């Protein structure tokens, strides 16, 4: 077995990005993700990379645009209010079909909100976040090990589909330390014949742009992009099922909420309640299959979230509202306790919703 080191989730993201070949990081500090920038500031100069603290989040995301257009693996990171500022740039990346990895270590909102963990940017992340018809692939790690693995996956997916990919984490997973192993398979970045790397007078110019003043042409780019999204929905939806085989109640949660929920599911099983967990690992594309299956043999789904009920809408769509879906949540930087989730499971077992 390869060596494991104890590392913060945020640091694991930074190290994994470097392993994936990312040599360009642009960011602006914000709690609770500043360790990513600190790690990059320390490492990038030693390996010939670029760490640049921009004058603002907006500047940073546009630097990402530039580096990506030049064919480089590039990343930025922020937390909720900072991600809102990056929204315009993310839309431009999507409109220009540029790969990039964006980390959101979510904190409570809206507005400046607080600095404690949250999942209240679910709608923003899964619906694109900026203007226009577009999506990002959104990955939701629930451990420090997954912070590393999904960061590498994020770079692969971004290059494969030429689009921005978001790692949707939260303050807790970012700040906690767990053992992590970096002995991971890494595919080299693919050739990028579309990149603006200089023609040397030998080829036609590559143009990276999101401006199409001819509506018919713009319509066509949207249609082609959505055909690609259909492929992604078919091929890239990921999830974990835990004790679902004989479950009569399903609990669903991602990230830190899934960690809390696992404790509650284990306790409920000790009480003889047949309950399992569906944990989405991508929330766009949203994994529909486990919910369709659950609707056949469960009487209720409980969605555990650190928001006022956002993923619950996707859960209802995924199971076609065949069974009731209820919400168990805390917000504003508070985290549901395993007992709160356990009480919700007990209530569902008794037939209440």
């Amino acid at each position: 077995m390869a060596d494991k080191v104890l590392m913060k989730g945020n640091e694991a993201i930074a190290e994994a990005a470097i392993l994936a070949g990312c040599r360009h990081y642009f960011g602006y500090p914000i709690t609770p993700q500043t360790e990513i920038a600190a790690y990059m500031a320390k490492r990038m100069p030693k390996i010939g990379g670029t760490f640049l603290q921009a004058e603002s989040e907006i500047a940073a995301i546009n630097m990402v645009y530039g580096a990506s257009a030049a064919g480089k693996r590039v990343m930025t990171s922020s937390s909720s209010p900072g991600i809102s500022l990056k929204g315009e740039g993310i839309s431009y990346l999507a409109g220009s079909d540029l790969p990039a990895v964006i980390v959101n270590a979510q904190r409570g909102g809206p507005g400046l909100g607080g600095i404690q963990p949250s999942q209240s940017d679910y709608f923003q992340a899964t619906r694109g976040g900026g203007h226009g018809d577009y999506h990002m692939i959104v990955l939701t790690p629930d451990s420090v090990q997954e912070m590393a693995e999904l960061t590498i996956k994020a770079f692969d997916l971004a290059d494969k589909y030429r689009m921005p990919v978001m790692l949707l984490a939260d303050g807790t997973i970012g700040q906690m330390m767990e053992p992590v192993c970096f002995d991971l398979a890494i595919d080299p970045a693919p050739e990028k014949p579309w990149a603006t790397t200089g023609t040397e007078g030998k080829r036609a110019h590559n143009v990276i742009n999101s401006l199409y003043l001819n509506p018919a042409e713009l319509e066509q780019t949207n249609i082609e992009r959505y055909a690609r999204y259909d492929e992604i929905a078919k091929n890239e939806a990921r999830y974990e099922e835990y004790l679902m085989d004989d479950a009569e109640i399903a609990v669903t949660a991602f990230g830190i909420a899934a960690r809390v929920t696992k404790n509650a599911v284990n306790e409920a099983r000790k009480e003889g309640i047949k309950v399992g967990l569906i944990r989405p690992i991508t929330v766009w594309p949203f994994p529909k299959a486990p919910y369709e299956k659950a609707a056949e043999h469960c009487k209720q789904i409980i969605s555990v979230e650190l928001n006022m009920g956002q993923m619950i809408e996707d859960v209802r769509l995924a199971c076609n509202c065949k069974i009731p879906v209820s919400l168990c949540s805390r917000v504003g930087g508070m985290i549901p306790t395993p007992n709160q989730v356990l009480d919700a499971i007990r209530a569902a077992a008794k037939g209440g919703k």
Partner: protein
Amino acid sequence: MTTQYLFAGFGGQGILFAGKLLAYKGLMDGKNVSWLPSYGPEMRGGTANCSVIVSDEPIGAPIVLNPDVLIAMNLPSLDRYENDVVPGGTIYVDSSLIERKVTRDDVTVRYIPATSLAAQKGLDGLANMIIMGNLLNNEGSLASESLEKALGKCISARHADRLQLNRDAMSLGSEL
């Protein structure tokens, strides 16, 4: 088996470090471990705490709400967390900084005048390690290879001169 620890005190007392050492030791013993700090403005000289879980099972929530072991290094921490400790659990109290006694009778309490001892013995700033020495000795794992390895991981080569001081502080704590 799962043991949940809560370390709590002021910023600067080495709360996060003590927790990290315990987590690293667990890792070296082949256990599952998690370490979660309180983060935010309260760390700047205010209260600091961290949750550490060491387990043979996969770890769910990394947040310790009901510790098996509480290490309280100041009065606000004892006031806040005393009643959260599970019955039969253990509370370590830095009795040079906390004048009152633990009011519960269903937990084991160890009063260690760690801060004043550290000052007397030239081990300034190592009250945390005096308590850790006592804790690890009670758990029967003070003289272990995994602890030495964990120390090596937690104290960078740049501060290698601190290594022996940390060992001395733990040794002192173990004798109490």
